[in-house]
């Protein structure tokens, strides 16, 4: 073997050795950091944001436990699922500047794949959810690649086209052998016998998702995402491979939207082509607009206000007639206009500021 090739080969091998040896090393480093992480977590709990977060989580757990009301629990479950979905949109649009109007694609794919694996393959819900999310990542790539060169309204329309294609594909019944026809897939087993347990499962998944998303946006990758959002060519001029990072953003966002979609079908125990409707994309956009763009945690507040407060408030109107079948879209549109006109920042920041004053007042500061 010529010397040059041999050297190249050995380089390649040692490269991969380094890669595999790197994994335990990285894990060990992570492990070493745990005491530090625990310490900073303890400190964080006593900060304003930390205590507020913990309070909210405890409150969310207590409500269904105290009321024991299935209706309330169901609403809270939807709220949790849609907050993950909204946050996944915020990562892509708010942090990376890739405004997608076709986010229902990832949601719907996650929903269908998870349902199919539970129903046809009889897999436990957790694995089906992971598979749903992984397939949504692949779809993230499929949507991301052709949309790479598109910006602004063109990107929005390009991504929306994908949701239209999938909606029509599933409606056409071409896929009925595997994924059901217009009625979709139904009769899935419940995630748990007890609704409260289902609720707790989903709450845990939601918390883990948010922790991961927040770690991502606070890490170096988050800095790069924001740079791409603010000025893509300037990021390019700073030596950043923007194509690669935009695809990463599509994939991460697809993953969490897929998780949300999977949980949606697993929890409702059925799925039909309507999950691909633009309506679902707009849900995410409205919730993020409500909570505040590029905040991640704003998505929780946005989802809560939209899903729990507004939806319940306006529910009685739905009985008045067919006009109000369009009610979700109507509220979405009205909220969006109001938010854009009067509160571009969303309500999270102002709400936090007011709460903070109150908190300082309570502590006598």
């Amino acid at each position, binding site marked *: 073997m010529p010397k040059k090739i041999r050297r190249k080969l050995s380089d390649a091998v040692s490269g991969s050795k380094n890669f595999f040896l790197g994994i335990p090393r990285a894990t060990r480093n992570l492990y070493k950091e745990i005491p530090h992480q625990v310490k900073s977590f303890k400190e964080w709990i006593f900060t304003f944001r930390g205590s507020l977060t913990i309070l909210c989580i405890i409150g969310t757990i207590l409500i269904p436990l105290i009321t024991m009301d299935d209706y309330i629990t169901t609403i809270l479950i939807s709220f949790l699922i849609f907050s993950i979905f909204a946050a996944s949109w915020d990562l892509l649009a708010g942090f990376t500047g890739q405004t997608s109007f076709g986010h229902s694609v990832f949601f719907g794919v996650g929903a269908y794949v998870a349902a199919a694996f539970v129903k046809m393959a009889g897999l436990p819900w957790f694995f089906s959810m992971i598979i749903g999310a992984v397939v949504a990542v692949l779809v993230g790539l499929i949507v991301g690649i052709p949309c790479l060169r598109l910006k602004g309204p063109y990107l929005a329309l390009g991504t929306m086209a994908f949701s239209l294609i999938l909606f029509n594909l599933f409606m056409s019944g071409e896929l009925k052998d595997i994924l059901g026809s217009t009625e979709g897939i139904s009769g899935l087993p419940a995630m748990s016998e007890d609704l409260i347990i289902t609720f707790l499962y989903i709450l845990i998944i939601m918390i883990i998702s948010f922790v991961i998303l927040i770690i991502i946006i606070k890490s*170096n990758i988050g*800095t*790069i995402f*924001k*740079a791409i*959002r*603010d*000025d893509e*060519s*300037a*990021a*390019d*001029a*700073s*030596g*950043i*491979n*923007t194509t690669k990072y935009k695809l990463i953003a599509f994939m991460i966002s697809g993953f969490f939207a897929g998780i949300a979609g999977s949980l949606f079908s697993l929890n409702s125990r059925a799925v039909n082509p309507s999950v691909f409707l633009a309506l679902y994309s707009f849900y995410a956009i409205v919730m993020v607009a409500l909570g505040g763009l*590029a905040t991640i945690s704003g998505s929780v507040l946005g989802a809560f206000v939209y899903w729990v407060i507004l939806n319940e408030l306006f529910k009685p109107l739905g009985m008045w007639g067919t006009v109000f079948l369009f009610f979700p879209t109507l509220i979405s549109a009205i909220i969006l206009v109001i938010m854009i006109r009067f509160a571009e920042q969303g309500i999270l920041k102002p709400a936090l500021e007011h709460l903070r004053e109150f908190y300082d007042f309570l502590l006598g500061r």
Partner: protein
Amino acid sequence: MGVILEVKNLTKKFGGLTAVNDFSFEIQRGEFIGLIGPNGAGKTTVFNLISGFEKPNAGSIRFDGMDITGLKPFQIVNLGLVRTFQLVRSFHYMSVLDNVSVACLSPRGKKAAEKVGIDQYASRILSEVGLIDKARFPPVILPHGDLRRLEIGKAAGTNPQILLLDEPFSGLSYEEQEHIHALIRRLSNEGVTIFITGHVLRELMNLVPRVIAMHQGKVITDGPPQEVANHKLVLEAYLGRGGVFA
């Protein structure tokens, strides 16, 4: 020593307009060199072509012995050639520190920042350009002079071998210009090759030992600033514009 940048017969057409016309020059490693020309001479286009932001219609660009014609901007940056923009471009909604960190997160910047860590390295650059007090500010509230310095800081974050500065003095007061002068001189003393444009020679006169003058996409002359200033074609190019020194 040796040639670091070699541009040969570079040509760029925009429709019927030939913005850069059969443009050739060489830059030695460690050199400090200027590029002047009246408005619309094609200076920015030359930079755009070298840094990969535009594709040339003809010609080639060799950097550090490699043919970089047709490479993407970020690839060229990671080889060690970085440019700044005539109209400053910062990341508006990020802190000044993060603006520089982005450059330090490019593969090349990362390698340089490895020992001290990204944040430390970026802070060090901010001290160098004199913006460390404003590290937490968003760039939108900075005055124009600070933005110019940030622009240089961002470029420095990628640990360049050669720095292309597009009119770093435009729109600055005399004192602000002095700041940037000092900053660029320091970079040059550290061994960074510097290629800098200006549209009047006065800005570059005391700074660079060599100037290329261009007009309508072509090199008119190339030499020490004194000679260039007195060159017949240069004087003609600037005629009716208030002279070379205006």
